[in-house]
């Protein structure tokens, strides 16, 4: 095998892995701010992609307006999740598991709603990030243009979320709220606001991801569940749900593992291999690969 091919495989792995990381960012962010795993969040990617498709390709609005509109609607969707799902469940004494099940079912719900309105056929995404045959070539390696947009956005979002969570008071208040809502209030944190912010920002991040991923995943049901959801989730969990950087690195690692197990072992068993590695990582580093500090009781 030529080194050029191996390099190409590596680059493709990083590229596809960064799409997992992009979804993982939303997962980490929500976990850090309300300690919940929200499967309905995955739907935001699909919703924003379909919305953008409708606004841009079907109605013919401009790129910018379509983008803002679809991401804005998805942000509101986050707010809806909070008030229609999270709050009522918490109020009636439901825990995390109930939340997981409810959001999983919302995920299924959206898939079926999309089928009713758009049918099951994947739609081609308009070539706003370059055409299907536009590639950037360098050093014998090539990559579709859209990935450069993805890298850019991943870098920006990752840095932004990290900065928000770790460096700003707002972010620290978000995390404080997740850990002890009552005491956070005693500190004067507007828990109401931070919770809404947490939901809206996490759907927004995944919503932006949806539009960027659509050229690769197509405007399709796949954006709303199934493998990308599980892989985004894995990316976040590999990093211990702690840090946005971790989510991206976790995603990229997953992408590389997948591509190399295809190349060197077997394309049929690539999922088995990457999942086994994931499980092994979790067993040997139960809090994620990037977490070293020991917590006690």
């Amino acid at each position, binding site marked *: 095998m030529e080194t050029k091919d191996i390099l190409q495989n590596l680059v493709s792995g990083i590229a596809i892995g960064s799409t997992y990381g992009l979804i993982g960012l939303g997962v980490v962010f929500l976990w850090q701010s309300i300690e919940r795993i929200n499967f309905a969040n995955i739907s935001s990617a699909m919703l924003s992609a379909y919305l953008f498709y409708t606004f841009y390709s079907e109605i013919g609005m401009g790129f910018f307006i379509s983008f803002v509109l679809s991401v804005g609607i998805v942000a509101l969707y986050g707010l809806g999740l909070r008030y229609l799902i999270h709050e009522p469940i918490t109020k009636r004494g*439901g825990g995390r598991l109930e939340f997981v099940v*409810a959001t*999983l*079912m919302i995920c*299924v*719900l959206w898939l079926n709603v999309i089928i009713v309105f758009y049918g099951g056929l994947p739609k081609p995404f308009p070539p706003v990030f370059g055409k299907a045959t536009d590639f950037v070539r360098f050093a014998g390696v090539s990559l579709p243009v859209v990935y450069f947009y993805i890298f850019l956005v991943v870098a920006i979002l990752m840095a932004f979320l990290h900065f928000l969570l770790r460096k700003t008071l707002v972010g620290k208040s978000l995390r404080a709220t997740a850990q002890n809502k009552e005491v956070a209030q005693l500190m004067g944190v507007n828990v109401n606001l931070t919770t809404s912010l947490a939901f809206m920002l996490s759907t927004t991040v995944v919503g932006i991801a949806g539009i960027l991923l659509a050229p690769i995943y197509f405007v399709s049901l796949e954006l709303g569940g199934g493998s990308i959801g599980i892989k985004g989730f894995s990316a976040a*969990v590999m990093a211990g749900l702690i840090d946005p950087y971790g989510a991206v690195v976790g995603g990229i690692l997953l992408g590389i593992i997948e591509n190399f197990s295809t190349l060197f072992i077997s394309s049929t068993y690539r*999922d088995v291999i990457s*999942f086994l590695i994931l499980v092994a990582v*979790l067993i040997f580093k139960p809090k994620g690969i990037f977490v070293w500090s020991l917590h006690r009781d």
Partner: protein
Amino acid sequence: MRVVNWKKILLIIALALVVVYPFLDKNDYRLYLANRALIHSILASGLVFLTGFAGQISLGQAGFYAIGAYTSAYITTRLGMPIILGIVCGILLSLGAGLILSIPSFKLKAFFLSLVTIAFGQIVYVLILNLQSITGGPYGFFGIPPMKVGQYYFDNKGYYYTFLIILVLVILIIYRIKNSYLGRSMFAINDDVIAAEVCGINSKQSKIFAFALSASLAGLAGSLYAHLAGFLSPEPFTFFESSNFVAMAVVGGLRNILGGTIGGVILTFLPEFLRFRGWENYYLIVTSLTVVLVVVFMPNGLGNIIFKLFRGKTHSHAIHKEITTLRKEKEGGTK
């Protein structure tokens, strides 16, 4: 002397209906659904035990279900062994898988664990697809023999009673475990592992036990399904099926001994009853919406509502019947 207890009468009528149902309804389709509902109930009861009582999460239950199904199918069809052996092997193999899967649970907290179980489910699914010589892969596995007693090949009626008896036994056993010191230990671990350990409870053992039991029940359900359906294909063993099982447990009520049954029955029949004319796209929307609404507005499940109707109030979970009576004695004594 006493006023007629209409609730009790209603309960008896309901039970009687369950028992004679196959003779009342001649519709083969509904009876078949009832059988699937019973299978789902067995599996979901295991999940209620695992999640509601032992506090562990599994989003990979379809994996055990598959192991049970394919094992029994293989042993009876390819090796020509008796069905009972197939079922026992199905249970044993998924029990083994459950034991292995319980290992990560020693170290991992809830959501990390749920990912491991998802991964387990996916791995099993991929293996079914690719181990074609054993599972038939995507073509499916055909010609699985139906159950029989002597010369009587089971029809849907035969299956109904077999499954019903199994389900009742399963519930009885879970009920007894729940109300024993074992159940109490599980609730304690669920609450605070370290405190429980310090009270002399081996949390690893408990987790292994919980995983093993729920995995065996899933395996049992799977092998029953294999013989009921007569053929297998990979599609019923995906992640969405696993989450559907969890939904059954939650809709029925995670802390309710009958939660699995209630959820299993409802979520088996609901989508089928919603297949009205022209609803081929909408029925799943309605089903998932129903689950969402139930979870959001009754996070304790429908089981609790039904229990409340019959009891007037729900029992705080681990309070034993004997303890309650004893308590009454004691209170009566002091007054």
